[in-house]
C-alpha cells in the first residue's frame, strides 16, 4: 500500500506502523465520573466498519508523524490522510 502522507506525498506503507481506529484519539478523562465504563468502551470496543474507516498510522521509519488515514477496508482505497495532531487539536477546539 501507499500512504498519502500530507507532508511527504505517497510513501510505502511498510514505513508505517498501524495502530487502529482513530477513535483512540478521543481518550476519556480518567478523573471524571464514570471513567471505568468510558475507558472500557475506549480501549476495547470498535465499530470495525466494512467500508470507510478512519485509522491511525505512525510513520515510524519516516518523520514520526501519526496520521489519521481514511481508508476503505473492503477495497483498500485511501480517501485521505491528515496529521493526527491537527485532528486532535481540532477535536480539542471543538470541545
Amino acid at each position: 500500500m501507499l500512504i498519502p502522507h500530507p507532508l511527504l506525498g505517497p510513501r510505502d506503507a511498510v514505513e508505517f506502523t498501524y495502530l487502529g481506529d482513530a477513535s483512540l484519539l478521543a481518550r476519556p478523562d480518567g478523573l471524571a465520573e464514570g471513567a471505568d465504563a468510558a475507558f472500557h468502551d475506549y480501549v476495547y470496543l470498535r465499530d470495525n466498519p466494512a467500508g470507510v474507516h478512519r485509522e491511525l498510522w505512525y510513520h515510524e521509519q519516516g518523520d514520526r508523524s501519526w496520521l489519521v488515514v481514511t481508508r476503505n477496508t473492503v477495497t483498500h482505497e485511501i480517501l485521505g490522510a491528515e496529521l493526527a495532531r491537527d485532528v486532535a487539536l481540532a477535536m480539542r477546539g471543538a470541545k
Partner: protein
Amino acid sequence: MTRLSGGLIDRSRTLSFTFNGRSYPGHPGDTLVSALLANDVRLVGRSFKYHRPRGVFSAGSEEPNALVTLGSGARAEPNTRATVAELFDGLEARSQNHAGPLGFDLLAVNDLLSPFLAAGFYYKTFMWPKAFWEKLYEPAIRRAAGLGSLSMQPDPDAYDKGFLHCDLLVIGAGPSGLSAALTAARAGAKVILADEDFRLGGRLLAESHTVDDAPATDWIAGVEAELASLPNLRLMRRTTVWGAFDHGIYGAVERVADHLPDPGAGVRQTLWRITARRVVLAAGATERHIPFANNDRPGILLAGAMRAYANRWAACPAQRVAIFTNNDDGHRTALDLLGKGVQVAAVVDTRPDATALGPYRTYPAAQVTNTWGRRGLTAIRVAHEGGSDWVTCDALGVSGGWNPNVHLASHQRGRPVWDAAAQAFLPGACPPGMIVAGAAAGQGSTHAALHSGAKAAQTALADLGIVANLPDLPRAEDTPLNLRPLWHVPGKRRAWVDFQNDVTVNDIALAHRENMRPVEHLKRWTTLGMATDQGKTANVTAIAVMADLTGQSIAATGTTIYRPPYTPVSLAVLGGGDTGAQFRPRRLTPTHPWAQAQGAVFVEVGPWMRAQYFPRPGETHWRQSVDREVLATRAGVGLCDVTTLGKVDVQGADAGVFLDRLYCNPMASLKVGMVRYGLMLREDGHVFDDGTCARLGAEHYVVTTTTAQAGPVFRQMEFARQCLWPDLDVHLISTTDAWAQISVAGPQARALLGRVVDGFDLSNAAFPFMACANLTVCGGLRARLFRISFSGELAYELAVPARYGAALMARLVDLGADLGATPYGTEALGVLRIEKGHAAGNELNGQTTAQMLGLGRMVSAKKDAIGTVMSRREGLVSDTRILVGLLPVDAAGPVVAGSHLFAEGAVQQTDTDQGWVTSACYSPHVGSSIGLGFLADGAARMGEVIVAANPLQRQNVRLRVVSPHFIDPDGGRLRD
C-alpha cells in the same frame, strides 16, 4: 529430426543439453521443449494421479504437463515448466513423478485403478481401522504425492530486491504491449515494459503473418531499437509481473541469470517492487482445448502451440499431424504447417459450415472421439456426418478458442465477466489505474491488439495529464475467429480437463451428482485448477462443463478467485537478499570491538549483540566466568555496557506534565539533578515498561526504557504527544545510539569513578543515590552520570559520546585493576538483578500488573496517567499473585524458570496451579540456585515450603518462599 526450416533460432551455434541423462543438440533461441521436439522427444512427464504418459501441451507458462527438474545438486529446481526454460549449453533436465524409467513408470498401475480413484474418493475411505490412517494409508498417499523433489541443500545462489517507479507499467511485450510502450515512451512518460519471455514480440513471434507486408520480426526490431534509444523507458525482458497489489504496487521477478550456464557471483533473480501510477495489462490470451476421450496422449497439444513451435522454433512434434478445432485459428495452424512441409492428415472441425483454407482434408461437423497410441499418439477416431474414421497422425493440435489472461486484472477481487459474443471471460473491475489491452481484453487480432495497446496508453497517460499521440501503426491481419463453442466431446471414456491433476469430465459429472456444484466446491472436491498451472488451460472449460450439467449459464456459474502469483515464483527470490547471518541487522554496542578483543562470548538480545560473559584462561564452563564476574562486582567493582537500554530526550515547557501522564507514578515533582524509577502501564492497566527518568534541567528529562521496549515506548510517547495531548509543549528525540552507557557497580564504584571524573564531587552528600549530572571525564570529555543501581550495589551509569565508549571501558578496566575492576556480561547482569529482586523481561511479559510486581502503590490515583483507570478492574485487583523469592529447601536443588508452583502435597493440575517461576539462576552470593516467581497470596506465604513442578523435565523441587531481595533487603548498599 523434426527440425523445420526458418525460425528464430541461431543455427550458427549448437548447444548441448541433457534430458534424463541423454545428450541432445539445440540452438540459442530454443526453449528446452522446442529443442526436445526438434529431437523427436515427445514423452516428457507423467501426470500427478494416474501417472499417465504426458507430452508437451503448450508453448508458454500455462504448461500443465512438461514439468522437469532443472539442474542438479543444490541448484536442482523441481517442477520447472520446460516450455519456458531458455536453452543454454550444459542444461540438465530430468523428468519427474515416476518410479522406474519415464517410459515404464511402475506407478502407472494407478491408471488401471482409476475407477477407484475418482474425485473425492479419499474422503470416503481410509477410516478403518483408525490407527491405519497415520501408519499406513497416509504415508502411502504422501509418498505418491508431489511432483519433483527438493535437493534438501541450501539454495547457493544470490537473490536481491529492488524498487522501481514509473508513470506507466506495460505488462507484456506482444503487439498491444509494444504499441502501448511506444505510444507512452514517445510522449516522454516514464515507462517500464516487462515481459516474461526472453524475446520481445509475444504472439507475433509465433505467427507467420506479415506486418506492413514484411515479417513481423522486422517491425518488432524497429520498435525495439526505438525503445532502446529512449532513456525514459526501461525494458525488462525475462521479467514476470506476478501480482497486482494495492495502490499501483506490482510484484515482478526478473530472471537475471537463469539462462546462463553459471550465475557466478551475480544475482540469479531479482524481486522488483514496481510502483506504477498507471498500468496497461497486455498479457495476451491462453488457448483452450476441447476435452475428448483419451485427449491426454503425448503428441496432443494446443494448435496455437503447435504453430508457435513451427514458426518460432522450427520444430514440430511429428511429420504427420491433424487438427481439431471449433474456429478458424485451427486452420491457420494447418496452413502454417503445410507451409513448413509438415503433412496435415486432416482438420477436424466441429462447425457444419467449415471449409478448408488450404490444400488439406477437412471434416466439417466432426469431432475427435478417441485416440490411440500408448506412449504417444498414433491415430485419432473422427466422428463425422458420414460415420467415423480412424485417421493416422502422430500429433494433434487442438483449438477451442482463446481465454484472455485476466489474472492480474482480477488480483484485487474483481471478477471477470462472461462475454457471450467473445465466448470468453473478459476483465471485470480492474485494479485502480489499470487498463487492459490486446488479446487480454479480447482484442485478439494483430490489428486490434496494436490499436488497443496504443489507445490504452493514451488514455492512461491522459489521466496523468500527459498528452500522448497515437503512433502510425502498421497494417496487420484482422481476421475473426468465427468460433462456434464446443466445451467437450460427449462420451463415457475419460476426457481430461485438467491434465496435471487428472481431472476429467467424468469427475465433474460426479461432483455434480454429489451436489458439489458451486465452482469452489467443484474445485476443492476434484482438485481442479490446483496444480502448478493454477488451471490456466482447465478452469474455464470446467466451468462450462459444469454449467452444461446444471443448466445454469456460464456467466451465472462464474469463476473461482484469481490469486497471485500469475506464475509460480521461487521462495528464494521472495525472501531475497540476505537470509543467513544477515537475516536481520545486528546492533553492536559501543564497546563491542573492545569486548571482542577481550574474547567475550556474545549473545543475541533482540536486535542487539551483547557480551554474555568474559571467559578467562582456565575457565572451562560459562558458570565459572559468570560466578567470578558476579562475585567481583559485589566485592570490588564490575563494569557492564548498558547502552542497549532505550534513551529518549524529553524537552519542553510541559515535559513534566507530559511524563506525569505517561508514567503511573509522579514525575513532574522530580527535582532537577535527580532520577526516579518509573513504571509505564498500557492503557489496559497492565505493565508496559519500566525504567528511569532523570531530570537534567527544568525543562529537560532523559527517559530510559528496557532494551526490548525501546521502540514501542518511543512510539507510545509520540502517540501521547501528537494524538492525546497535542497542546503540550513537548519535544522528543531518541538518543539511544548517541551515548555509550557503562554501568559501574560495586563497593569500589565510587573509588574507580573518582579516577576518571574531572574534579567532580562524588561524595554521598554531593551526589547521593538517584542523583544525576552533566560533567566531564578523562580530561574534558562531556559525559552524563546517573547514580542508579540494577545490581543492588553502590552503582553508577556513566554515559559518554558513543565513539568514546570502547576507550572509556578500556580506561576504567585499566584504572581499576587494583580495585578488582571486572567487566561483566548479560549473564552476570541477570544474576545480579535476580539476587536484588529487580523485575526484567521475564517478569514484564505483558501479562503482569504493578500489583503483581509489588509496585501497586506506585499507581497514583491522583492523576490521569495512561492505564490508571483500567488497572483498577476487578480482574486485575483480585489477582493475588505477587513476586516472591524462591530458595531450594535442599541447597543442591535446582530452581528452573518456567516451573509451575503448587502447594506442597497438592495434586498438580491446571486448577491447582498457583503461579510460576519467572527467572532463576545460580547465585554465588547465596550459594545455591535462586528464583523469582509469581505466587498466589505470595505476600502472606513467606517461609512456606512449596513445590516447583517442571514435568517437561520430570522435576519436582521443594522451594521456600522468601523475599525477592536476596541481597541487601534494606538497600543500604545503594545509599552508602
